[in-house]
């Protein structure tokens, strides 16, 4: 019933335009298409912010000033990249206009830039989408104008030779052409754009990274990220909403090469305007967004907790940075989602080890009691460190650096607060094994592990992939971090210690250590 009700409430973006006759009859229509009146400057925002909805109900002359800046910024913790940007940030500034507007577009090329640039807006009807008219040398500005004939969400990008390189360096953004009727109100609008980066160094290799042309031609990026860097939508930068609020995501894909399979773990999209167009599709799990394409995604937050945004081509999420986070706060909703209700032994062959009646009772009881107010744990509030009080100043510095390594490398499995995943990924928080065998933990990070381990009396039998590409310092920092966090307190690790273990255990390509904890 709840599902049905939700569908009834789906807003119909552009639905009104299907009824022009009705609008004319009531005198509200725009069929006469009056010429734009007035002039205003477009509000530009940096992701994930979106300019406020347009309140006017007429076309106008919109002046857009967009500046190209070549600037070195963070790509991941400890990793910098010389980005080329529209407005100083990747993705470029979000532009919001209305169908029927006439746009006077000014493209400024910062005098300190090295390259000429231009802009092709997919919202433009005309050769090159504005590229030819906006070709601009460093220290110069170009102006052109266009009419926003079609409503929709459009990508813009640089199209200067060699176009792939300009896009690979971050030159893309979104322009929304609101339909004449406007968009239905929502509680939150966010701007997310996926893009991939091709660096000479491996993923996570520290320092200023250079563009790797061979990887770009082969379409094998080291980084696939949302909003221009690893972690741009994580931790304190997570998107937020409250239970019951409606959320609209404007999602673009700059590419330059890869399609995005955009998915929010634990959310079904009520409505998706696929490819940024105007036809709504309902009840979507994953929407494909091609390079140079976009989608509008709408849903209502119903259950509190953390939701992970991913490119569901999962190695990109796990190994290349394509994750973000939405944190929903508010009262628990155990009817829609109960949380874990029972953890029992299973003997195989379909036979539960516990008496069936007991198991069923355990499942049934929280639902039978007042479901909405059932006292489940409050929603996780994201990552919280609990540093050990016994840390020295030097170890404290290691702890701080270790957090960066952890959030980039470990947290996807071991979770934000080291709690692991019951039955699958062992916890690090208050872990007897971690505290008893530091060398084994270091070996595990360097070589991965494969086979059974027992942590706090529970057996785990999974695979941990090796992270031997981390530097000795990074491994020492993250070991110090996990051994002194979330209730753990113990000796940290030094780079020398890591190096000795690395040398004593030469990496065998493709082979995981049978168990690093032996």
């Amino acid at each position: 019933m709840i599902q049905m009700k939700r569908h009834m409430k789906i807003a119909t973006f552009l639905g009104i335009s299907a009824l022009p006759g009705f609008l004319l009859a009531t005198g509200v229509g725009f069929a006469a298409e009056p010429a734009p009146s007035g002039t205003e400057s477009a509000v530009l925002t940096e992701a994930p912010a979106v300019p406020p909805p347009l309140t006017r109900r007429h076309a106008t002359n919109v002046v857009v000033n967009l500046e190209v800046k070549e600037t070195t910024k963070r790509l991941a913790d400890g990793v910098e990249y010389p980005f080329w940007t529209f407005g100083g940030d990747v993705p470029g500034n979000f532009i919001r206009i209305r169908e029927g507007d006439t746009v006077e577009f000014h493209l400024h090329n910062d005098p300190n830039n090295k390259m000429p640039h231009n802009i092709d807006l997919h919202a433009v009807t005309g050769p090159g989408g504005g590229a030819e008219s906006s070709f601009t040398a460093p220290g110069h500005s170009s102006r052109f104008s266009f009419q926003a004939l079609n409503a929709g969400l459009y990508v813009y990008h640089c199209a200067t030779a060699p176009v792939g390189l300009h896009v690979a360096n971050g030159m893309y953004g979104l322009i929304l052409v609101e339909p004449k009727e406007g968009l239905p109100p929502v509680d939150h609008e966010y701007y997310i754009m996926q893009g991939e980066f091709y660096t000479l160094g491996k993923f996570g290799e520290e320092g200023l990274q250079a563009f790797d042309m061979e990887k770009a031609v082969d379409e094998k990026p080291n980084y696939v990220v949302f909003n221009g860097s690893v972690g741009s939508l994580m931790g304190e930068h997570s998107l937020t909403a409250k239970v019951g609020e409606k959320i609209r995501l404007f999602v673009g894909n700059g590419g330059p090469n890869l399609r995005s399979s955009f998915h929010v773990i634990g959310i079904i999209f009520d409505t998706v305007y696929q490819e940024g167009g105007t036809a709504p599709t309902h009840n979507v799990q994953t929407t494909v967004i091609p390079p140079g394409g976009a989608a509008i995604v709408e849903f209502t937050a119903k259950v509190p907790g953390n939701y992970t945004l991913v490119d569901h081509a999962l190695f990109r999420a796990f190994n290349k940075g394509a994750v973000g986070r939405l944190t929903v706060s508010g009262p628990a909703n155990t009817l829609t989602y109960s949380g874990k209700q029972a953890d029992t032994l299973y003997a195989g062959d379909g036979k539960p080890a516990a008496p069936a009646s007991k198991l069923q009772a355990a499942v049934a009881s929280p639902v039978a009691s007042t479901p909405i107010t059932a006292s489940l744990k409050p929603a996780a509030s994201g990552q919280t460190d609990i540093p050990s009080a016994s840390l020295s100043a030097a170890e404290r510095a290691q702890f701080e650096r270790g957090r960066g390594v952890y959030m980039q490398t470990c947290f996807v499995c071991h979770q934000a607060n080291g709690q692991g995943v019951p039955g699958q990924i062992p916890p690090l928080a208050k872990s007897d094994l971690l505290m008893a065998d530091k060398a084994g933990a270091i070996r595990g990070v360097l070589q991965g592990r494969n086979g059974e381990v027992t942590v706090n009396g529970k057996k785990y039998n999974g695979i941990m992939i090796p992270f031997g590409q981390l530097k000795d310092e990074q491994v020492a920092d993250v070991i110090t971090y996990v051994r002194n966090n979330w209730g753990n307190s113990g000796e940290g690790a030094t780079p020398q210690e890591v190096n000795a273990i690395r040398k004593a255990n030469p990496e065998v390509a493709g082979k995981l250590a049978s168990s690093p904890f032996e």
Partner: protein
Amino acid sequence: MNGHGLMSLAALLMLNVGLSGQELSAPAPTSGTPADMVLIPSGVYRPLFRAASEPKEVSVQAFYLDKFPVTTGEFLEFVRANPRWRRSQVKPLFADQSYLKNWKADLEPGAPLNAAATDVSWFAAKAYAQWKGKRLLTVAEWEHAAGAGTTRPDGENDAAFRQQVLQWYTTLGAAPGPVGANPANFWGVHDLHGLIWEWVLDFNSAMVTGDSRADSGGLERGLFCGAGAQGAREVANYPAFMRLGFRSSLNANYCIHNLGFRCAKDL
């Protein structure tokens, strides 16, 4: 002057050491070579874009080329001798408002004297060359000379050299440093890559539209989205695309912070 001489001598010595035992060798300086110039032997330039009616190859006659870009100090001498090229007196038609924009006064440069002269227009560069009894070089000559790597004349077949060049083009612009900091190339010329962009005589001859996907070869402009590479000879030569794009974005009166020049001379 002395500094340059020493550096180029050192570079020549290094070059000889590096080449011992190899088939290739740089031409020995001839007695007629002007000071601070080297002889670039004749060769062939293959344009990146061409129309069907245009030749595949352009032959380049041997010429003399400045070893270094023109320095701020040398440009100071030029404006001292030619008052109409001073910042306060230059005609807007010949140089935009950014002309010598970092100079503190007409005869007071804002950069060290050995830094490459930049923020100069094509007109100013051409006038300087004329004053020196030299000329600007053509795109074909520039690309022919700059195609050499540090150890061989065909740099395009040297992957490490290509990566190094690409890296400069994708590194952010900074105030140009002193000339001669980059190693000499096979012909003994410094800084063709890695310091500044350079004006050429016919910078606007291979005019592209600015939309790389539309420039599908010579004058064809009907194609979009990736079609830019259709007519290109060597689609992997990104630095060449970038130079082409950069030159095409210019007008002759533009003055840009990392755009300078050097001169050539006929034999």
